[in-house]
């Protein structure tokens, strides 16, 4: 059969249209599915796998996790009823209504502080600003609110979760890594988690730690859960905010649309950036039962988020182009598969989108705001995702604002 290559109907001269992705080349060169797994790039099949009750978590150390003591295991590694119950117990913290009525106040309070720092005029690292936003919001949801300061909390969390890049290969490298990790986790436990637990034993609040205290989680269980929320809520959002800012600084038309559009339009822009630049690249699942036409029993499947997000069957033509109207036109959920799908879909997806939207809206309205230096894009092989470092932003108050 002579299949015609797909052509962009908008006349961009390339068979698949313009490619607006910034992380794709790096990802293609470095992405490493779990050995022995079968990669699924088709959106519909990937969704079927992730929604199936016949799969269990795999990859990301899931295979090394001892599930015989679920009270010591993060919800991330659990499946079935227990997983669902744990997530349901704290679902209200992530509900759209809670985000607006409770978390928006935290987001704006953080932005007041960051805006004041930016208005001092010195160039500041964008990933540090975005990390502070992500830490403040996640800390509120998790209940890490009794630390000496949120900046120190951010530093300690980062020292645990960012350490993957320091890891040297080999036995000695692993031993040094484990020793360092023990110290860092211990510091986080003493300085952040212990005071938070003590405060909640006296007076429970509406947050994850209060739930864990009420359920008598073990110390290990609490640490694991907090670090899971920390990793998901803080590290990934930090990267996405920088990535979205980079696109908006680079593209004046998109920036104009972002600053003149309403909240729905801003969200559509961010979701489309996330479709092209998903922070997580793949999700692994092990089939515990066969599903005809989809998977065989025992098979490990690697659902490629990056491939699924550019599957023309669901994106329509020109899948690599940044087109904020795409999702509405195609009648699909805007982030496509960037937050995963099925029971393990990212619980904080809406939180991340709201904090990114508010961060960028407030920052880009500052008079004279500019990207002093672009980020360097690097690959974190531990989490199999991109990291953006070195971006500097500054504002010159003498310059007019792009938009009031």
């Amino acid at each position: 059969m002579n299949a015609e290559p797909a052509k962009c109907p908008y006349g961009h001269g390339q068979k698949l249209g313009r490619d607006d992705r910034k992380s794709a080349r790096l990802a293609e060169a470095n992405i490493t599915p779990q050995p022995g797994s079968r990669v699924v790039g088709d959106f519909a099949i990937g969704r079927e796998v992730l929604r199936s009750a016949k799969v269990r978590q795999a990859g990301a150390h899931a295979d090394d996790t001892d599930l015989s003591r679920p009270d010591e295991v993060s919800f991330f590694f659990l499946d079935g009823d227990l997983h669902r119950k744990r997530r349901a117990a704290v679902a209200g913290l992530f509900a759209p209504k809670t985000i607006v009525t409770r978390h928006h106040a935290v987001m704006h309070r953080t932005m007041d502080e960051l805006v004041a720092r930016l208005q001092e005029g010195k160039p500041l690292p964008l990933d540090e600003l975005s990390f502070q936003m992500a830490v403040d919001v996640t800390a509120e949801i998790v209940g890490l609110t009794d630390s000496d300061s949120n900046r120190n909390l951010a530093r300690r969390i980062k020292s645990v979760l960012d350490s993957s890049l320091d890891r040297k290969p080999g036995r000695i490298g692993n031993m040094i890594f484990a020793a360092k990790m023990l110290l860092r986790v211990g510091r986080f436990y003493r300085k952040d988690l212990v005071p938070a637990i003590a405060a909640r034993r006296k007076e429970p609040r509406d947050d994850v730690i209060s739930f864990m205290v009420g359920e008598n989680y073990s110390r290990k269980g609490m640490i694991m859960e907090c670090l899971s929320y920390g990793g998901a809520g803080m590290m990934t959002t930090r990267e996405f905010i920088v990535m979205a800012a980079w696109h908006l600084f680079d593209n004046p038309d998109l920036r104009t649309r972002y600053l003149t559009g309403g909240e729905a339009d801003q969200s559509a822009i961010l979701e489309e950036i996330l479709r092209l630049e998903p922070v997580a690249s793949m999700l692994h699942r092990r089939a515990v039962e066969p599903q005809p036409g989809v998977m065989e029993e025992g098979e490990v499947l690697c659902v490629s988020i990056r491939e699924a997000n550019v599957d023309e069957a669901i994106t329509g033509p020109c899948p690599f182009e940044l087109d904020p109207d795409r999702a509405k036109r195609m009648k699909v959920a805007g982030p496509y598969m960037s937050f995963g799908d099925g029971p393990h879909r990212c619980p904080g997806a809406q939180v991340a989108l709201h904090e990114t939207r508010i961060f960028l809206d407030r920052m880009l309205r500052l008079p004279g705001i500019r990207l002093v230096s672009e980020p360097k894009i690097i690959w974190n092989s531990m989490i199999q995702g991109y990291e953006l470092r070195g971006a500097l932003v500054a504002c010159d108050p003498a310059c007019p604002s792009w938009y009031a």
Partner: protein
Amino acid sequence: MVRVTFIDAGGIVREIEASEGISLMENAVAGGIDAIEAVCGGNCYCGTCRVHLTPEWYERLGGPGEYEGPVIETSGDGHPRVRLSCQLTVTEALEGLVVETPAAQS
């Protein structure tokens, strides 16, 4: 195909031809019903695909499932007959279903 009618908070009536075997939410989104947001894509997490049923339809379809109830509760929707449309699979038994959508989903 199954006929389903959506009535929004302003009283505007829209009828769609829904496909069997997939959720009412997916049918609504495909049919351009803007009042169904479904920001989580149909995973029973966000509560932004809520529909309000008549007493008759509520009796036929039953109340929310085990995981659906807490999501509806956190949405703050106080209507006595709320369901998440992502949890309602369209079958021929839904022929003629009429649902109302809330003024705001989030």
